[in-house]
């Protein structure tokens, strides 16, 4: 005899007996955008749609219009990505103590130390911070709420890398304040050699108050734009928090986002491209003061390459968007480091499936080196996507105070080509290591510029040696040949 539905329902009631906590309600409230901004976004989208409509009536309706539409959307998101600084504090010993800081240009991806991509999308980060979600801060500027997925690999990679660089990291997992909170895990890396210390917050699920302050670079000054309490509880309410920006007040985040949207809407130019279009970089860079964004529509799996004047392939892109998630799989930069050319898998936080939206960002300075390039399909068995190129003529201000030094570091990228300018095959893994090295050097330059420069010179020399011996730069060589030598150099210093 079938039991009545009431019995089954009683069982389900016991399985789903939760009521939303106050904290959850606060989180949801903080996610609700203000109506003015939503209306603005709608007007913006409608305006863009009207433009597209007009353009499609004037010209032949081609799929490129879709690419332009995607680009509008990408641009709209990029507009919310100002240069960013993030300072975090913990309430310990009766006061707010700074626990970390990172700087980012806000709309770029960084490579992690094991060659995987790390997510660094300001908009996402902002929402996550607002949502009082978990937070992960690492030295290379990763902020994510994916705690123990790939991000812990970043951390492990970071620790390993510090070891390679001659540090003597002491790693303490969660020992310091784990007892005060439910599951707070803090990793401290102390360099016994230098006395430096890096603190990593792995999990904010804690009763210990943590507070994050985001600042944007506006008109040359760091302006606090958002303050977010990571942990709830009465202790967060007092004492009054004082960010380290005297005389400045937290400004309205929505207003800031709108400001960026307006700027980008005014300055972004969109150039539809055909297959094998020759792109004159000098002309582009003359127009562009900031990012150049490549967008496409096409099949879910698409491949393309950028071909330099000499016929070399500089960058090969394979898109394999995965169910609306940001999950790069086949990005294989053929130049080292992945810092000059890098791909950004862009799928908006939209529950509707949008697997074909991909954005590729090319840094202007890297394109200058190429002079010109061609977009070309790598295989004929895939329909080639429609491309569009956008130029953000406004430019996103770079927050790095050591920009000039970083620019010098980019010369390292030239190592990846032999003196004749040919690319070196089969070496992208080392390129990833170099990317790690860039991160180290960039951070190292802040604390010890001279040492970092020396280390760079050493690495350059080692690579030259390897080539002169006819060896291909590869991870094994890097692992077993260069690093010990670099460490020796560091010890000697």
């Amino acid at each position, binding site marked *: 005899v*079938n*039991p009545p539905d009431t*019995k*089954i*329902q*009683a*069982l*389900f*009631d*016991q*399985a*789903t*007996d*939760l*009521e*939303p*906590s106050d*904290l*959850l*309600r606060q*989180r*949801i*409230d903080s*996610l*609700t*955008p203000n*109506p003015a901004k*939503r*209306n603005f*976004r*709608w007007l913006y*989208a*409608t305006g*863009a*749609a*009207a433009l*597209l*409509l007009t353009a*499609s009536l004037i010209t032949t*309706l081609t799929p490129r219009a879709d690419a332009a*539409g995607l680009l509008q959307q990408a641009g709209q998101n990029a507009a919310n990505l100002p240069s960013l600084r993030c300072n975090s504090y913990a309430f310990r010993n009766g006061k707010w103590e700074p626990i970390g800081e990172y700087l980012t240009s806000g709309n770029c991806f960084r490579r992690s130390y094991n060659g995987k991509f790390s997510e660094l999308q300001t908009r996402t980060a902002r*929402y996550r911070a607002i*949502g009082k*979600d*978990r937070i992960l801060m690492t030295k290379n500027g990763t902020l994510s709420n*994916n*705690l*123990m*997925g790939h991000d812990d690999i970043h951390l492990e990679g970071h620790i390993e890398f510090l070891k390679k660089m001659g540090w003597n990291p002491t790693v303490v997992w969660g020992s310091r304040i784990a007892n005060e909170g*439910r*599951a707070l895990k803090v990793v401290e890396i102390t360099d016994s050699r230098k006395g430096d210390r890096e603190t990593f917050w792995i*999990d904010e*699920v804690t009763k210990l108050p943590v507070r994050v302050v985001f600042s944007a670079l506006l008109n040359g000054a760091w302006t606090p734009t958002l303050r977010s309490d990571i942990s709830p509880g009465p202790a967060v309410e007092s004492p009054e928090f004082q960010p380290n920006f005297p005389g400045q007040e937290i400004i309205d985040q929505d207003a800031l986002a709108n400001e960026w949207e307006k700027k980008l809407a005014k300055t972004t130019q969109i150039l539809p491209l055909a297959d094998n279009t020759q792109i004159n970089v000098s002309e582009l860079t003359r127009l562009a003061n900031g990012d150049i964004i490549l967008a496409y529509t096409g099949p879910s799996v698409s491949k393309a390459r950028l071909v330099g004047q000499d016929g070399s392939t500089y960058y090969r892109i394979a898109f394999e968007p995965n169910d*609306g*998630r940001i999950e790069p799989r086949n990005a294989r930069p053929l130049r080292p480091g992945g810092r000059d050319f890098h791909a950004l898998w862009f799928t*908006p*936080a*939209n*529950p*509707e499936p949008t697997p074909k939206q991909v954005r590729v960002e090319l840094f202007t300075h890297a394109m200058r080196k190429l002079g010109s390039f061609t977009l070309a399909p790598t295989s004929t068995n895939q329909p080639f996507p429609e491309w569009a190129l956008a130029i953000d003529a406004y430019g996103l201000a770079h927050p790095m105070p050591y920009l000039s030094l970083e620019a010098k570091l980019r010369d390292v990228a030239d190592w990846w080509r032999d003196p004749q300018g040919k690319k070196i095959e089969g070496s992208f893994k080392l390129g990833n290591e170099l990317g790690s090295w860039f991160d180290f050097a960039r951070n190292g330059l802040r604390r010890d510029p001279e040492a970092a420069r020396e280390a760079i010179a050493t690495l350059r020399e080692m690579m030259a040696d390897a080539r002169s011996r006819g060896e291909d730069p590869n991870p094994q060589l890097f692992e077993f040949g260069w690093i010990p030598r670099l460490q020796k150099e560091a010890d000697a210093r």
Partner: protein
Amino acid sequence: LKASAVVLTDCPLASVTTQSELADQFLADVLKFVCAFIRPKADAEDVTAETFRSALTSLRLPKSHQEARAWLLKVARRRIADHVRQRKRRPVSTRSDEPQQDQRNSLATGAAVRAILAEMPADQSAALVMKYSLGMSSEEIGQSIGRSVAATNSLLQRGRAIFQDRAQSLLEDLP
């Protein structure tokens, strides 16, 4: 043109439901749905928050109460799948919120029900939770899981049979 049409029909002024109303009306439902598959509570709330984050940042808003709930639960199902996938890669953290003695029986029953649901086909378990925990109609459930009313009724019937079979002892214990 298609994209333009979509945007034009999504004018928020034309929407019956606003974003804050969405959150007010359906937070409890979404949490109930999520907690049928995700525990502990903190994780369930995380997934719920993530669901609303995804939904509220969308330009599109559903235009009716029924459509809104079905849509939110559709989003929630994806977030649950994400969470389960990610959890497999994470070490299990220790939690200090041990239940009280008098709660244990109820918790054990709830856990047993969730375990049964976890082993059932995803569509079936989702449909059962929508029906028995949230009281949704077959039409509404069908909207959320992308099936016709007839197919949804069939799914519910099969799911109910499986659940009943596996939860026999639990059902017998009930008064």
